[in-house]
């Protein structure tokens, strides 16, 4: 009987193709948006996690300032401090560096300025003052030339990213050439291997980076360059949490017993990221839920139309012995099939859309099976919830009145 109902429902839906499609549209849009957004979020989460983990999962990050919520989870983009200091000093760097258990410590100091080669400029480039350990901590690889070394402390040398080489020098290996930053000449020492970038990542895009020694950056900035971020890698076997707490202690006393910095392990960074993403996902899911609601109302509407259109059919069925619950079942199944078809179409469309997104952007959405199953399940639920009222209406029709519609 159920199989027969599904078959009949499908025939009924097919007999009014356009109407059925337009009715499904609400569900389709809802499912497409949910699946796309959730898989985008999932994909971004994975990409960020992959990128963060690629630099080593034991790195501890020190950032100036604390957000008004003291937990890392409340951060919307690190670096936006609502309280505390705006930057770190080289004294902070020294404190972090001397913390017990810290093996390699790297300062990040963004220097304002537009690099120039002859008459070409590259305003998108970010200039960082850093040290020789950066390559090891962030696991950056040099494709051509060498990275900064300890001996370079006070030399005007630079290691540049792939994009900088291409855009500024218009060649792949501009080693030995010079570029101008704030009218100072810098000798190019090395070119970094191309790195993958991902959206929403808090890490800078090293393809557009120009790395110079920190003391040089300080003198460029007039003696003291503010540090935006300090990264430290613990010695083997030392847990990052221990380093985090030790640094926190030391900076607390160094800053006159003030908690004015944020110190994060990679785990903290990840959870901050996923918090942002899940907030975003929840928001879009709410929008999608509204779309599904509208889709459901559409289904209810069309089912009511179908019930009054097919009153005669209901009469015939009742006359030959259909019980009320059998009529109810028939129309309920029809609503569910309609909604389920919308859900399946929506999932297919979302998968297609994800391929398009992968091709056109650097996002890598990941359509997961649970998301598909949940969407399909929700569309079935929509069919049941919004199909029940029309089905009850059909079931309650008086056979005589229903048959009368035929003649």
């Amino acid at each position, binding site marked *: *009987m159920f199989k027969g109902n599904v078959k009949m429902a499908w*025939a009924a839906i097919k007999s009014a193709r356009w109407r059925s499609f337009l009715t499904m549209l609400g569900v389709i849009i809802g499912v497409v948006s949910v699946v796309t957004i959730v898989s985008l979020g999932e994909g971004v989460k994975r990409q960020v996690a992959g990128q963060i983990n690629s630099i080593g999962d034991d790195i501890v990050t020190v950032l100036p300032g604390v957000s008004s919520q003291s937990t890392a989870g409340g951060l919307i983009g690190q670096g936006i401090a609502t309280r505390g200091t705006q930057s770190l000093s080289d004294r902070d760097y020294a404190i972090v560096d001397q913390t017990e258990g810290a093996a390699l410590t790297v300062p990040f100091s963004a220097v304002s300025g537009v690099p120039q080669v002859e008459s070409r400029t590259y305003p998108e480039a970010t200039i960082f003052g850093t040290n020789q350990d950066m390559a090891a901590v962030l696991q950056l690889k040099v494709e051509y030339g060498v990275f900064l070394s300890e001996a370079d402390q006070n030399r005007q040398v630079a290691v540049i990213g792939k994009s900088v080489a291409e855009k500024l020098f218009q060649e792949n290996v501009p080693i030995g050439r010079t570029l101008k930053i704030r009218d100072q000449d810098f000798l190019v020492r090395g070119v970094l291997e191309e790195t993958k970038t991902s959206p929403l990542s808090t890490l800078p895009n090293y393809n557009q980076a120009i790395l110079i020694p920190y003391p040089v950056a300080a003198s460029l900035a007039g003696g003291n360059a503010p540090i935006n971020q300090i990264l430290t890698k613990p010695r083997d076997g030392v847990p990052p949490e221990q380093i985090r707490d030790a640094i926190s202690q030391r900076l607390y006393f160094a800053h006159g017993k003030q908690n004015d910095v944020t110190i994060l392990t990679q785990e903290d960074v990840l959870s901050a990221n996923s918090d942002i993403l899940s907030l975003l996902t929840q928001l879009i899911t709410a929008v999608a839920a509204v779309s599904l609601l509208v889709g459901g109302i559409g289904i209810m509407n069309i089912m009511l139309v179908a019930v009054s259109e097919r009153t005669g059919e209901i009469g015939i069925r*009742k*006359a*030959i*012995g*259909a019980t009320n619950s*059998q009529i109810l079942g028939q129309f309920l199944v029809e609503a569910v099939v309609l909604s389920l078809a919308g859900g399946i179409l929506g999932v297919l469309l979302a998968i297609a859309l994800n391929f398009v997104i992968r091709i056109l952007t650097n996002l890598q959405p990941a359509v997961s099976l649970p998301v598909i199953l949940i969407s399909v399940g929700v569309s079935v639920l929509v069919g049941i919830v919004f199909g029940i009222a029309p089905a009850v209406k059909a079931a309650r029709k008086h056979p005589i009145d229903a048959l009368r519609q*035929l*003649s």
Partner: protein
Amino acid sequence: MALIQLNDVSKLYGLGDATTVALEEINLTIEKGEFVAVMGPSGCGKSTLMNLIGLLDQPTHGSYHLSGRSVAKLRTNQRAKVRRDKIGFIFQSFNLLPRLVVIENVALPLAYRGMTQTRRLKRASMLLAQVGLQDREYYLPKQLSGGQAQQVAIARALINNPEIIIADEPTGNLDSASSRVVMELLSEIHQNGNTVLMVTHNPELTRYATRVVYMHDGMIVHDEQKQIGKIPARARKIIFGQHQKTEEDDLAGVSALMKTIPGQDTIKKAVKKRRSRKPAKKHAVASRRGKK
């Protein structure tokens, strides 16, 4: 025990001043194996009576016993099951489901009984063969002629081996040739021991009945048993409502003429000719009426 027993059954429609009486204190007993033709002008309550007997509707007053059991206390679902298992409906406009093919239409009542598809299609195929339409199994209703559609409807009505066949003007939309096929089928069903109730406007069709019930304004005005093959005189009269000359009246005039004119043989032949033609003429009028 009577198969169908109606005691003082009334059916009212509307409220207060607007109340109309569709049936007024009907008493009717139908035994198993009868072929009852119900005649009467439009709006006399024939169809309402059929709907009550067929459990599609409930009487306002009075009691209805089907096989000795009162149906008043049956719940909606139980009524549906009685309709499904004991009653077969045949409608004037066939009432096949347009989206289902012929065999599915025939098998539908079995589906409501929960029979598996293979078994019900097998049985439907058997019944289609019985009504002579086995080569039309996978046609859609719209691809059939009216007569064929009604044959399919009869197969559907028979599929559950019902005790009662209720036919509401089964030939009302058919030409005379198709009507004949349909009536022969109904007659065959009757001869197999089934009870048939048929509403008709066409006095010709009472030929197949064992009993004719005449209705007028919601009441049974006459009820007569008859032999199969005969058309009661009353049936001819009631169809046209007002008094009209019957064939007998015509013949009386002709016989008066015959007495005065010589060469009687030729005239007798003319009368014979007329006699055989006349019913056909009336038949045509009746079926046109039925279509309205």
